[in-house]
């Protein structure tokens, strides 16, 4: 189904959506853009000129989430907020990342109900990137600025209107009241998409990356890569595909909670005996890179990175993930 959503009608369309669901959109607070529930009306409430800093995976895997509450001597599961949500303005890289994480949380013999329920009640209206950023590298990891996998609706900006393509039943339900797109408009959107894709430089090619990285497992390469690394959690917490979490009993709250965790912290794998299979930043950095670009692919058939570029932008030590992959290939 392909419809058009005129920019002039955007605010009223969102207001209509807000009758049935909470609409999340990128909201700017000074220099920081983040996905917030819209409380007001009008185009001024949200911003579409930059992606969020904090990844929208937080809408399905909150950074801190109470799993259970104490009830006598038992633990009762915490009922999350299961109201309908629409996430407007999510970028293809982030929508695709949520789809990859479905493989982790719902694709095996165990289904994570906390993740799955939120996914079931949320519709993703993605805004494709007609003007990709310099730090974006989605095309290098098998995705692209208009990759609609993971999105219920994909919007392409062709000037006065968005061409809106719905690929799922949820998406079609959302667009049903809109006008059909003309062939001319559909062509214009294909053109915009092709131009955006062509404009992106690919910093590396992924062919054989798994073999390359496995081949470097015992190499000095990792020592060199990790030297400037501070071992903080910026790259992992801002990453839309990172999913590691810790489960902690916060006795003072009477809750068993889970929080995002990172393989970059020293205590991540440390055992009660004191033994740590990843004792230094060398092993931890190797794990970080190999999990993304090798192991994830073996588990879920796709590289665990959608090229959003947040790690490149926000690493406090200026480490560039794209550069690491490139170096691994020239080294290996």
């Amino acid at each position, binding site marked *: 189904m392909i419809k058009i959503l005129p920019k002039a009608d955007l605010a009223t369309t969102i207001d209509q959506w807000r009758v049935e669901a909470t609409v999340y959109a990128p909201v700017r607070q000074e220099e920081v853009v983040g996905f917030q529930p819209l409380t007001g009306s009008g185009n001024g409430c949200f911003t579409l000129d930059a*992606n969020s800093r904090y990844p929208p995976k937080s809408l399905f895997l909150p950074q801190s989430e109470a799993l259970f509450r104490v009830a006598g001597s038992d633990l009762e599961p915490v009922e999350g907020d299961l109201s309908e949500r629409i996430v407007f303005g999510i970028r293809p890289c982030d929508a695709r990342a949520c789809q990859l994480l479905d493989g982790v949380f719902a694709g095996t013999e165990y289904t994570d109900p906390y993740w799955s329920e939120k996914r079931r009640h949320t519709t993703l209206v993605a805004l494709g990137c007609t003007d990709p950023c310099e730090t974006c590298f989605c095309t290098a990891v098998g995705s692209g600025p208009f990759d609609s996998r993971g999105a219920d609706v994909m919007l392409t900006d062709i000037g006065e209107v968005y061409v809106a393509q719905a690929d799922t039943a949820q998406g079609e339900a959302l667009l049903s009241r809109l006008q059909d797109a003309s062939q001319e408009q559909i062509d214009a959107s294909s053109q915009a998409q092709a131009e955006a894709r062509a404009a992106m430089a690919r910093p590396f090619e992924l062919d054989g990356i798994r073999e390359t990285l496995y081949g470097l497992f015992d190499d000095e390469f990792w020592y060199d890569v990790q*030297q400037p690394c501070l071992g*903080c959690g*910026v790259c992992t917490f801002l990453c839309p595909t990172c999913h590691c979490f810790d489960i902690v009993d916060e006795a003072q709250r009477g809750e068993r909670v889970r929080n995002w965790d990172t393989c970059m912290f*020293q*205590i991540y794998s440390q055992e009660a005996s004191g033994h740590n299979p990843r004792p230094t*930043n060398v092993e931890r950095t190797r794990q970080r890179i190999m999990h993304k670009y090798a192991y994830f692919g073996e588990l879920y058939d796709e590289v665990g990175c959608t090229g959003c570029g947040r790690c490149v932008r926000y690493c*406090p030590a200026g480490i560039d993930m794209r550069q690491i992959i490139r170096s691994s290939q020239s080294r290996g």
Partner: protein
Amino acid sequence: MDELAQAIRAEAARLLAEDVVDVVIGFQAGSLALRPQPAFFTDASGVDTLIYNGFCQNNLATYLARRSREERVGIVCRGCESRAIRVLVSEHRHDREGLYLIGIPCEGIIDWRKAEREAGLGPGGFAEVLSVSEQGDEVLLSTRRGEYRLQRERVLHDSCKRCAYPDPVGTDITLGEPAGADAREPRWGLVDAFEALSPEERYQSFVQEAERCIRCYACREACPMCYCTECFVDYTTPRWAESMITPSGTHAWHIIRAFHQTGRCASCGACERACPMDIKMTYLTDKLDRDMLEQYDYEVGAAEGAPPPFATFTLDDQDQFVR
């Protein structure tokens, strides 16, 4: 700036060739012109990649904790790094004899995010910059699309504008011309502004900054003074700060970390530069620094060999409880 980089390179090469040090910690160009990376040179022939410019935003002293104590380390240091190192030495983290300080007078670190905004480069635009050049009061960014001439004053990092110690102290060698100690803004400007607020306003201001915190601990890792192998925030008994990104946990994190910096913080601002969520936090440590100055006449890194104030007890301590 280029002359300075050349001088650093020459000194680094000499130190390595003459086996004075095992490693020189400095900066090298990353893949992005506005984001130089800390670099570790172990061979005189490799120092050609060493660079230095106003975008070198990391406090290199934090890497001392990540090297082996047996290593003899040469380290490029500006005012803040050299003062931090004085504290680390007084806390017995390193032997002074094992360090060789290459002093660099500092004209202030440029905030790449401000530069991106000033140049109107749009999100991710900083990555379009192919080269930078600093000429006096101006910073020139060259991109494929054109050149952008920025006023240095407008893109300096906030902490650097208040810096009272741009010239390094206690160095083994100092390169370049002294920068002079005239801070562009009053040293205690942030503290004064905060103290002018009512208690309610202060609390709101603190809460608003802390709200964005994602407990990534980039501030901690970027800080040379945070070297504890087990950080208080990971303790379960007692639970000083709850693990969740709730106000309770996050406020405890910020406040306790600030207090752990008392008498140790060199006001370098590396914490703020590392923060991915643009959180301001130096107003807390600035306040503690001023308290130390006013109450104990103590200034971080001002005197070589000054003992750490909170680990030193004398018979004529002004506090009775010690005796």
